[in-house]
């Protein structure tokens, strides 16, 4: 159900602070939306079928998307486009029982005539587009509803049926929002210069630095009376460098630095330093020994712990509903690991976890998981999700889930079967017993000595958001299932070290986790006083894979370092490609 069409399909769920209120009456887009929605209500009278539409929602993001790629000091591509991305929703039936949450919800077998949206503020052209999109959404809704009724007729009665859609209070917030001027020439030069850093590393075979600056204005109007307009921005600089060890194994490091405001991205000097570290890491990995399958005490430094918790806690806080379907039909559906664990223990009892998208700063650093409205137009509420280690609440959208009938404003990503998907904003993982990080490392060594182990493991950085391709993701998912883990793979470590009993750290390459899932969190022994803020641009793809997924939900995780009693690692037994026969042309420089 997810579609991957990059530039044409960007909707963010970020929002910076809102500025002065205005009437919004001067806005052609808003007027076209409101007027056509008003007219669409006639479908209640003139539409076909037994099910009348009860809910309309029109969204439109008007976005300037700048994307610059460079490699080895040279610009590879620049694209600067203006796009309008609509979301038109029509629900038939009523809040209790509508066209969503069926395997074929959202599926439409007819032709589409609403492909291209006008970029000018042309009132008549915009209304025409909303008209055709509404017509299609309505027909799709009728089709889904027909299938859903047919399913009910052929299934035995379910004991419990949840309502399909929850009510939400209407919100009107129409501040004036304008696009920001981005210095394309300046950024092109800067990205090219940053990419030149890798010229100094002949060990790096391929490298790329990319800027994406997304400057959107999102409009949302629904038939319940909500009318909002807000800035929808995020920018990031991502880099990836890959080398090949003497035995042929590919090794890589990647980074992504993001901000809701392009002018708040770190200085060029700071980014250059980050690129240099990337080059150094790849050089070290090329020369590092190949890791071995091992199981033992493992220390995650704060940033790696935050990356791990974004996946094991953050992703699982979104509990999608399994759609209705004909008896006997298989659904490719990955449930949340938390689905059946409400009230159960997720973490040791000295942990509390909350998600709070209303926070803007943490220790003087901006939190990019801050937003004013989710994509259903609901303002987010802070949620204490884990209290004393036990699961207390989930992140919700307007699709009710068992025990959570209302939205807490976390619909941030495109979902499946006619619903939106919940995602974290700012996730705060708080340990109530902590020790300094140095003591945590001592404890790791102590554990190894007690168990007669030669070394323990230290994880400094995970490959999250995932920087490899879809093929590697697939083999990771397969390995995860085959090793008895969950259907949800965990990002492999990028920087993982053996810690010998004398305190010496040795970088190893090629390791991935085996059987790590949210259940592993119960094996946490201790947490550090030091905490890290890790942020990323969540896009709904598995492992938030870079440049995949349509929607963007910037997110932050604050977490301490974590010492695990036992984590399992293994090395993929793949045939390795032969290294390049001729050395790189810049090797002698």
């Amino acid at each position, binding site marked *: 159900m997810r579609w991957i069409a990059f530039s044409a399909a960007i909707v963010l769920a970020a929002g910076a602070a809102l500025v002065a209120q205005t009437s919004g009456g001067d806005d052609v887009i808003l007027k076209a939306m409101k*007027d*056509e929605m008003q*007219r*669409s209500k*006639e*479908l209640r009278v*003139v*539409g*076909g079928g037994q099910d009348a539409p009860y809910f309309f929602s029109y969204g439109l993001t008007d976005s300037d998307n700048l994307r610059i790629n460079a490699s080895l000091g040279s610009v590879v591509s620049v694209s600067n486009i203006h796009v309008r991305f609509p979301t038109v929703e029509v629900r038939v039936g009523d809040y209790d029982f509508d066209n969503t949450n069926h395997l074929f919800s959202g599926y439409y077998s*007819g*032709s589409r005539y609403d492909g291209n949206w006008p970029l000018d503020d042309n009132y*008549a052209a915009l*209304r*025409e587009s*909303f*008209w*055709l999109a*509404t*017509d299609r959404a*309505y*027909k799709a809704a009728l089709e889904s509803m027909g299938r859903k009724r047919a399913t009910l007729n052929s299934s035995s009665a379910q004991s419990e049926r949840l309502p399909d859609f929850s009510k939400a209070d209407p919100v009107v917030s129409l501040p004036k929002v304008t696009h920001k001027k981005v210095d394309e020439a300046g950024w092109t030069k800067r990205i090219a210069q940053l990419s030149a850093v890798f010229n100094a590393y002949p060990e790096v075979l391929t490298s790329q630095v990319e800027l994406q600056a997304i400057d959107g204005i999102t409009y949302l109007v629904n038939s319940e009376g909500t009318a909002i307009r807000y800035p929808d921005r995020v920018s990031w600089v991502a880099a990836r460098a890959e080398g090949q060890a003497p035995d042929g194994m590919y090794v890589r490091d990647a980074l992504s630095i993001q901000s809701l405001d392009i002018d708040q991205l770190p200085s060029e000097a700071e980014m250059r330093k980050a690129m240099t570290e990337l080059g150094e890491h790849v050089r070290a990995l090329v020369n590092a020994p190949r890791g071995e399958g091992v199981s033992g005490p493992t220390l995650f430094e704060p940033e790696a712990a935050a990356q791990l918790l974004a996946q094991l806690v953050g992703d699982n806080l979104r509990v999608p509903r399994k759609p209705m379907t004909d008896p006997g039909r298989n659904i490719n559906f990955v449930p949340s690991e938390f689905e059946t664990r409400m009230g159960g223990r997720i973490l040791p009892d000295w942990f509390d976890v909350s998600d709070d998208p209303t926070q803007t700063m943490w220790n003087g650093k901006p939190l990019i998981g801050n937003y004013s409205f989710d994509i259903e137009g609901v303002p987010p509420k802070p949620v204490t999700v884990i209290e004393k280690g036990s699961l207390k609440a989930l992140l919700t959208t307007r699709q009710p889930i068992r025990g959570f009938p209302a939205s807490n404003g976390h619909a941030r990503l495109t979902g499946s079967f006619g619903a939106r998907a919940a995602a974290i904003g700012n996730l705060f993982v708080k340990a109530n017993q902590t020790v300094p990080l140095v003591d945590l490392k001592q404890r790791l060594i102590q554990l190894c000595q007690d168990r007669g182990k030669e070394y323990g493991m230290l994880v400094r950085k995970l490959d999250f958001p995932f920087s490899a391709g879809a093929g590697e993701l697939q083999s990771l998912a397969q390995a995860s299932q085959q090793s008895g883990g969950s259907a949800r793979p965990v990002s492999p470590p990028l920087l993982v070290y053996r810690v010998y009993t004398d305190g010496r750290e040795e970088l190893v390459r090629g390791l991935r986790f085996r059987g790590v899932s949210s259940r592993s969190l119960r094996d946490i022994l201790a947490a550090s006083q030091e905490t890290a803020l890790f942020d990323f641009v969540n896009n709904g793809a598995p492992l938030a894979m870079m440049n995949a997924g349509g929607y963007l939900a910037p997110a932050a995780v604050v977490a301490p370092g974590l010492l695990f009693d036992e984590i399992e690692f293994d090395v993929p037994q793949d045939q390795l490609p032969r290294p390049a026969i001729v050395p790189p042309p810049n090797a002698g420089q």
Partner: protein
Amino acid sequence: MKARRLPLVENGTLKTFLMSRSPIQGFPQSNGHGRRAPGYEVVSRQSNLFVESSKKVSDAELRKMLVEEIKKQGKPYGLYFDQVSSGYTTTARRGLQAFTVVPLVVYRVYPDGRPDELIRGVDIVGTPLASFGKILATSDHMQVFNGYCGAESGDVPVSAIAPALLVSEIEIQRKQSSQDRPPYLSRPSDFRAEIRR
């Protein structure tokens, strides 16, 4: 290889093929027709294809011949293809050696002098040799069609220069039709909100 003019069919007989540097039996050399779109494989492709005829008549004469042919065959009407958007063919050995042409503007021509009638929803289908054998005459002036032709080579720009053709028999098929229901509400620009049921 340098491009060059190449006579392919002389007096209706096939003489040679368009060749790239990939040889086929009996044709070991390129004749400068290896083409491709950037990033694709080189394949032998056409460039400017000229079709000339020695049996030429004026447009008016050609139309007269069409009407006569309709009467001779006892058909209720003939067809006049004014514009064609595209066409395709399969050339793989395992495929059907047939072609489809997708016309844009087609008229029925009646033998009784009624005005021509615009029709929709037909495609031309056929097999190359059978169709070419049924050409009765051509017009006396050529027209240029510029377009893109796609294959393993990607799309390459091509031209075809040909006169109008009178064909004694052609096979057409109905286009795939849609069951789509027209929009429930009228266009917003009508503002009268007429109801279509």
